[in-house]
């Protein structure tokens, strides 16, 4: 019950991000979610696209360093405290949170949150037992 996240290394200089998005745009990719972690010198761009394998091939061909990572796409009810419940469930089970960011689109009346944890399998089990809904890569295609 994972979705595949693509991470790309970008140098912290002007035009870097524009070049990347242009690359994906020209190949008809729809960015479903996007987040950037940056330091003084570089950034790691993380994104979700439906056809991650093709995206990886195209980006690698274009010379980018690309990594595919399993992340959770968690469907969270759109009301205050909902995210806190999910995160508490993870921390109560000693699952470490690496980072999270939100999806561009909603999942029905739910918000979608991308969560990267240190123990993905365990996290899936914990959240399923809590009745939290997660999306698979196939589910993404349908959104």
């Amino acid at each position, binding site marked *: 019950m994972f979705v595949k996240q693509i991470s790309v*290394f970008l140098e912290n200089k002007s035009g870097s991000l524009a070049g990347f998005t242009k690359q994906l745009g020209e190949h008809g990719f729809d960015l479903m979610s996007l987040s950037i972690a940056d330091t003084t*010198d570089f950034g790691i761009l993380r994104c979700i696209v439906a056809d991650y394998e093709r995206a990886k091939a195209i980006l690698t061909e274009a*010379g980018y360093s690309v990594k595919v990572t399993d992340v959770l796409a968690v469907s969270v009810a759109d009301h205050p405290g909902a995210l806190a419940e999910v995160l508490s469930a993870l921390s109560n089970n000693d699952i470490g949170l*690496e980072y999270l960011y939100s999806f561009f689109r909603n999942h029905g009346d739910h918000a979608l949150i991308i969560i990267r944890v240190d123990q993905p399998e365990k996290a899936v089990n914990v959240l399923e037992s809590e009745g939290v809904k997660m999306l698979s890569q196939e589910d993404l295609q349908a959104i």
Partner: protein
Amino acid sequence: MKHMIWNPTMECMPREQLRAFQDSRLRDIVRRVYENVPFYRHKMQELGLTPGDIHGVDDIELLPFTEKQDLRDNYPFSLFAVPTSEIVRVHASSGTTGKPTVVGYTSGDIDRWAELMARSMYCANVGKGDIVQVAYGYGLFTGGLGAHYGAERVGAMVVPISGGNTTRQLMLMQDFGTTALMCTPSYALNLAEAMEREGVKVPKLKCGIFGAEPWTESMRKQIEEVLHIDAMNVYGLSEVMGPGVSMECMCKQGMHIWEDHFLPEIIGPDNKGLPYGQQGDLTFTTLSKHGMPLLRYRTHDLCTLTDKPCDCGRTHVRMGRIMGRTDDMLIIRGVNVFPSQVEHALLQVKGIVPQYQIVVERKNLLDTMEVQVELSPDNMSDTVRDLETLERSIANSIAAHALVHAKVKLCQPGSLPRSEGKAKRVVDNRKL
């Protein structure tokens, strides 16, 4: 102008007499390395030479050259000409790749080094009654201890503060009334700037003995004007001895090479000796070392020699400022760095493809070295922490192999400039 001379007999010896002295010492050292160092015996045998063929300095061109790589190949102790039990100290400088180059000193060598450094201190009129702040690094690097022993030999009060910690340097300089400062010229400029900034006055400081990196007449003027001192140039390299191989007198017209201990040559691109006045590769034969004597060691420093008489009264030849290198060695804050060392260091880090560029700058008067490394797909991670760990391990590997702190910057694959298929490894933006 006052000229203090530590050893007038040797330093002012008429040149014919000095030549006879060198002849005899050269014969002695050739015999010693032939008998005790297999490396030199084999080299001489290959050339069909025996010690008896070398009658004096006129025969120097018959002898084989020694390169830094030879020191590396004989790591650590194989070039020693005495049993290791006779060695009382080793120093090391970074080698061209991996292992450092090691030099060994007998107690006699340490004594002679102190003598030559004492001569050098006197060249700058520094002696008993002076307070000498040694801000060269102490340790395997020869700068700190070399300066230290010389300053002690002339009877000065030595402040062995070692390098770095500018605030502390200034405090002691003020409180102790330091009269002579020994460090790299770029660090001297750095201290001068800090003094101006913090309003620190050091009226007792009268001279600086600066070396371990190339510098220019305009830097000398700048240091002298800001600090109101005589900024004096000293030269040396660990392979040959350390600081004090040559030193400028108060005439400031080139550095006197202590020719009773070192036989200098200037070698041209065709490996033939060049006459005085022509620029080439400075090459030394050590005439008095016992621990690790070297024949015709190629420093790869470019300079000229002159035997014109000097107003100070010393007769020893003078070398001009170092005008460059005949190889790709960089000097970063006094530390010798070869691009090959950086490459070697990168290869020690798992998954790193050594597609790199070294960018050297002088920021706030201090050298900085940035190593830009292309991030290979294998090392890509989705977390900043992993990539920062990678940067740190690369920096640690460079520190371990090249003995210099470098800032590591990861770059996108293919982003570093390549010329004719071969990457441009070094960008040196320092304006000397």
